[in-house]
């Protein structure tokens, strides 16, 4: 009885339908448990969480250096956005490192990547935590101040991608966008 104390011995092994369901449920949990390591070896989407401690000012300095060395133009935002009206357009070397900074309320700089090449994108935030959300692809990562979050990305589709901030970072949060172009 659910509401009364149990006075008779109540332990007995599961049987019948209950045993069947327990078996099926345990089996399903095994399948799910194996999917993650399986995908780690056979799948391609596995963020490893590679990261290094870094002071926000140092990260900004590295980003500025990266922009200076690899700048190929200027991205002028055709849609009105006070926080990302104009960004330097930067093309990292194929297989090389790229730096991307999230700050209120802008992703800096705009990147130009090549389809099929692999890049190490260094992602960090300068002030608060920001959410890196690449649209319309819908890939999402966390950008945290003090951490250089390294994403080894291989763009496999061409086009213009918008980085949206999806971690609350103040009043201009909804307008915090950036750009990645893949050619």
């Amino acid at each position: 009885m659910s509401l009364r104390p149990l006075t008779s011995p109540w332990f007995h092994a599961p049987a019948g339908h209950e045993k069947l369901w327990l078996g099926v449920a345990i089996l399903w949990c095994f399948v799910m448990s194996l999917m993650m390591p399986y995908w780690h070896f056979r799948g391609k989407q596995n963020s490893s969480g590679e990261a290094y401690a870094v002071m926000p000012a140092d990260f900004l300095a590295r980003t500025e250096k990266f922009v200076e060395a690899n700048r190929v133009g200027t991205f002028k935002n055709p849609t009105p956005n006070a926080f990302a009206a104009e960004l330097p357009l930067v093309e990292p070397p194929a297989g090389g490192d790229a730096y991307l900074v999230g700050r209120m309320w802008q992703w800096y700089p705009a990147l130009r990547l090549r389809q099929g090449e692999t890049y190490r994108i260094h992602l960090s935030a300068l002030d608060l935590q920001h959410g890196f959300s690449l649209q319309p692809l819908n890939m999402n990562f966390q950008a945290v101040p003090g951490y250089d979050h390294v994403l080894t990305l291989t763009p496999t589709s061409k086009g213009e991608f918008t980085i949206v901030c999806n971690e609350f970072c103040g009043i201009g949060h909804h307008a915090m966008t950036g750009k990645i172009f893949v050619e």
Partner: protein
Amino acid sequence: MTSVSATLPVGPHSLAAPATPKRVCATTGLGVCLDAQRFIKLHAVVGVVFLLLGGIAALLLALTRWQTVHLLPADWFYRVLTFHGINMLIFWILFFEVAILYFACTTPLNARLFSRKVAWVGFALMGVGAVMVDWVILAGKADVMMTSYLPLLAHPAFYLGIILVAVGTLVGVFNFFATLYVAKRDRAYEGSMPIVTFGALAAAIIAVVTLLHGAIVMIPTFAYSMGWIGQPDPIWYRIIWWGLGHQSQQVNVCAMVAVWYLLSHVIVGARPVNEAVCRTAFALYILFINIASAHHLLVDPAVGSAWKIWNTSYAMYLAVLASMVHGFTVPAGVEIAMREKGYTRGLFGWVVALPWRNPALSGTVLSVIIFGFLGGITGVTLGTQQINIIAHNTLRIPGHFHVTVVGGTTLAFMALAYYVIPLFFQRDFIWRGLARLQPWLFGLGIVMLSFGMSFAGSMGVSRRSWDIDAQGVYGSAAHLWLGVLGLGGVLAFVGLLAFVLLCVGTLLFGEKNHGRPMADWGTPPALAGAQAGSLADNHSATKGTIVLTLVFLACFAVYYFANWKALADVWPVR
């Protein structure tokens, strides 16, 4: 009533002891401790007040994210979002859960509450803390969301208020443990505690672990906000905060499952098919649920993949297994009880014969279905290390937890209120027609809201964002789903308002039922020739339930692998 050994005198904390303030419930025949009754009432009423506050905030938010209406300005949207999250996820649920704990340690055990003074202290701390937090949010000094991720900083009173609520809850939980101890010591009952109390005990143990995490994270953050110490590391904060944040929701799961067992027993006389299995499942929650906090850190830097895979796969699925066990044992208990009453036709004749006009039944059934099918399946999928890449911080996340915490826990607590008010406040419900409709309105609204969020989220719409038009990437489909979210939110709010009006109206104007049984909501009668207990040893009498659970598993597998397919379509990332 439990028989107490005649040779040994009972102690002062048994209700059977002379001069104990108690009454006998006219409906159930159980003894009710009057001290416990007072605090059950007090916590439940205050909980419902916070539910209403959070609900008003919910309506404003739904009407803002419904992009066509877009009601609130940006600053008030984030303020109200913070207010909504904290009032709903913390205040409403914690107050109601303390009420459940005080019930579970007294009436089913025939025991007297350990201490009135301790209960007052806990209640006062929780109340003061909650008012402080709400005040500081509405004053615009804590627009930090429920997670308040550092370095985002709120006014110190925000952290202090949360600490007070946590300490107050711990005091209440202590009173619960102490009551369990004195009830056993004073031989208030014989044998093992009933499953309702056992479930509440599991919830209380998880609550202690949760609140300790809260202390570890909130006390340094408070000190930092006062300028006493340097800034705590943001990743450290995230890891420990989720030991509080995710686990607190597992306290709800435990309490909700205990309520399922309670209500299915009260309404149709269901009992667990196998007590050992049900209790083991509760123990799995206690042992493994802490690890599910890793859910929230799957695309964070500085947390390695081995840690993520270990926590979210091998260990977390043991907690998922527990939910899958309860998802079978609760309906199986109902099926057996109904078959023993003579409703034996076909696979689902017992389902048809359930008292559907009883809002506690419809609320419980909807809670089980919404929690299991929508909440459970989405939760496990989103908590998969790799799949999280396409869901993290999108509207899919609130799409998931609104069906677990609102469609599951809140609906179960609402269903419980249809018995709590007649039995503890001793007044029969007014407007019974509206009451019969209420769980359906609320459940349907929440399901629509969740579908709107989940589909918009799978199109990349982020959570906690005031506007999607400024980003220039979302098309008409995303707008359509945000409209569904808005409509669902309005419908759910109507259901919530109906619930609050029914409760308040009944407390003020309901007919008193002192000394007579409560008005019946609908209990299925035993048919001629039926024999109670006749299926106790028949382990294959749950044909309908096994079919339902296998359908559930099929849905689970389809959704799970569809998400792997969606993941395989995005860019490779290491």
